[in-house]
């Protein structure tokens, strides 16, 4: 997350731009879009499938414009924008789970083979090479498809990206305890799903029930 860019010559600071936008100059928001679209894309790209990143990133920036009056300016604009972006990603998944658009088909045979191969790999380098494959991403997508929107967000922020619980709580707007408890439970669920993949078993009714909730 980037802070407000330093003041260089004629480059206006974020606070000045924000004042202009709040004063009715919507065009001034263009400066903030240019400054923060990469940050927004970076966050969205970690949570949302690539073909939908544009759409969610746009939603986040438009939401930033709409809610600009609620930005207290006590912290950097980038942090505030990051919070909005994470919540937009969360909203995206909530809507998708409601519409039942999430992939629940079986894993491909390549992905099944990938897991078997991975367990036989000895060297670290081969392990890293194996991890950076399309099969790994496929397994991750399938596993996430079987988690709820809340679990997906928490697992991504805390376990996959390695953010501290406190920071994840700020981004999601939840309490630290909620994130801590959910992070623990969702990791257990993820491991159970991986176990099922490994066994080649189908999704348990319990996980499906939890997702439906």
């Amino acid at each position, binding site marked *: 997350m980037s802070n407000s860019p330093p003041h260089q010559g004629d480059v206006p600071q974020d606070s000045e731009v924000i004042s202009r936008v709040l004063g009715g100059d919507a065009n001034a928001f263009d400066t903030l879009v240019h400054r923060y679209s990469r940050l927004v*894309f970076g966050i969205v790209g970690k949570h949302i499938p690539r073909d939908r990143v544009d759409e969610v990133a746009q939603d986040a920036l438009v939401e930033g414009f709409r809610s600009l009056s609620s930005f207290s300016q006590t912290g950097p604009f980038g942090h505030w924008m990051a919070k909005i972006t994470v919540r937009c990603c969360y909203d995206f998944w909530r809507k998708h789970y409601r519409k039942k658009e999430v992939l629940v088909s079986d894993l491909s045979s390549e992905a099944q083979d990938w897991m078997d191969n991975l367990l036989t790999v000895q060297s670290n380098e081969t392990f890293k090479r194996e991890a950076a494959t399309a099969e790994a991403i496929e397994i*991750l997508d399938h596993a996430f498809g079987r988690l709820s929107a809340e679990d997906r967000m928490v697992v991504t922020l805390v376990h996959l990206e390695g953010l501290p619980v406190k920071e994840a709580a700020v981004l999601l707007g939840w309490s630290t305890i909620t994130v801590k408890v959910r992070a623990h439970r969702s990791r257990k669920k993820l491991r159970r799903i*991986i176990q099922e993949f490994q066994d080649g078993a189908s999704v348990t009714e319990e996980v499906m029930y939890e997702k439906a909730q």
Partner: protein
Amino acid sequence: MKKLNRDVQRIEEALIQAHRSTSQVEPGPFFNKKVMAFILEESQTLRAPVPNGINAGRLVWRLALLSYLVVTVLAAHLMTSGMDSQYQISMFILGDSSSLDLFQTFGIM
């Protein structure tokens, strides 16, 4: 069982690495323009941003709290003082006899 857990952990580790190694998505060349076009087009209908000093949303909620307090205090006062509507209406008419005609017109008294 231990081996099974170790296997799951290893796969989990690989998945974490896979997630971290995915390349960063970059905005396309026209993305910023597209966003701004949307914002400008919608800015007429969007809830216009309000300057921080005069935040209408906060003001409304503060007034709501104030009105709640006023209504509660008035209700408490009326309950403790005892309210006799007939007595109060007659007091009102005596105090403002011009309204008497109005009451009679509508057949209230």
